[in-house]
């Protein structure tokens, strides 16, 4: 998949996942790479940007084992942004599916 395109989709996926529940980096990486093939290393620059843009905030939480984990949680601003991206995605994927149906649907 095109790298730039994937980057945008990855952003949407991350927002939806932390909207569902607060997650730490590794957890997010696992949840995403279960469905989409990504270089998990690119997740952290993305999370860092989302935090800087105040779409999410972080907090440290102790875990039963190992070091404390940095959890990411969605802010109200992030929720608005997520809704906007979802709408964008729905339009976009709708058009693309339409094109594909018209193009190769009758073969």
């Amino acid at each position: 998949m095109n790298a730039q395109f994937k980057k945008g989709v990855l952003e949407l996926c991350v927002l939806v996942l932390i909207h569902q529940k607060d997650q730490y980096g590794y957890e997010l990486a696992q949840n995403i790479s279960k469905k989409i093939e990504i270089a998990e290393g690119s997740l952290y620059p993305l999370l860092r940007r989302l935090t800087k843009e105040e779409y999410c905030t972080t907090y440290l939480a102790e875990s039963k084992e190992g070091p404390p984990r940095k959890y990411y949680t969605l802010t109200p601003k992030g929720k608005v942004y997520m809704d906007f991206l979802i709408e964008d995605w729905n339009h976009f994927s709708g058009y693309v599916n339409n094109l594909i149906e018209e193009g190769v649907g009758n073969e």
Partner: protein
Amino acid sequence: MNKVEYLNELKSRLSSLPEQERDEILYDYEEHFEVALRDGKTELDIINELGSPNKVAHEILMEFSEEQNGKGDQSQTSSNVARMVLLAIALIFINVTFILGPVAAVIGAYFSLYGVVITIGVAPIIALVHLFLYGVGNVFVILFSALFTLSLATLMTVGLIYVGKWMYIGLKKYVIFNIQVVKGER
């Protein structure tokens, strides 16, 4: 490559970032390793999933430079304006005190040479008119000197046109140079 090597490699590739920023980023990857190891993965698995330190560092630096660009734009333009105003004032000062006088003198001298051309071009014509109307003066002397001064005037005109062109080009270049200095292109 193992975990320590991976993190060291990443660290060295991020050496251009502020220290605090870099430590925060590296902490995320350290945590990732820790948690994944507890999850039962090997260091090699984790590294393969993360992608090469080179690629990861590249993405981090890209995000960082985009951020800096977004932030830097406004302050940069305002400081640019201040710099341009200061430069313009300095240039005006230099031009008025040191350049304007000599340039005006040269231009004045240049145009006065046209005065000379007109004088030596017109003088033989007046002499010829006098010769034919009133019979004043020696025909040969006047014809010869008229030929001489008229050719001289023609040559001087041609020369002055060239000199004028060079002066115009030079002046234009100087003005453009000034504008470029103010705009910060030089």
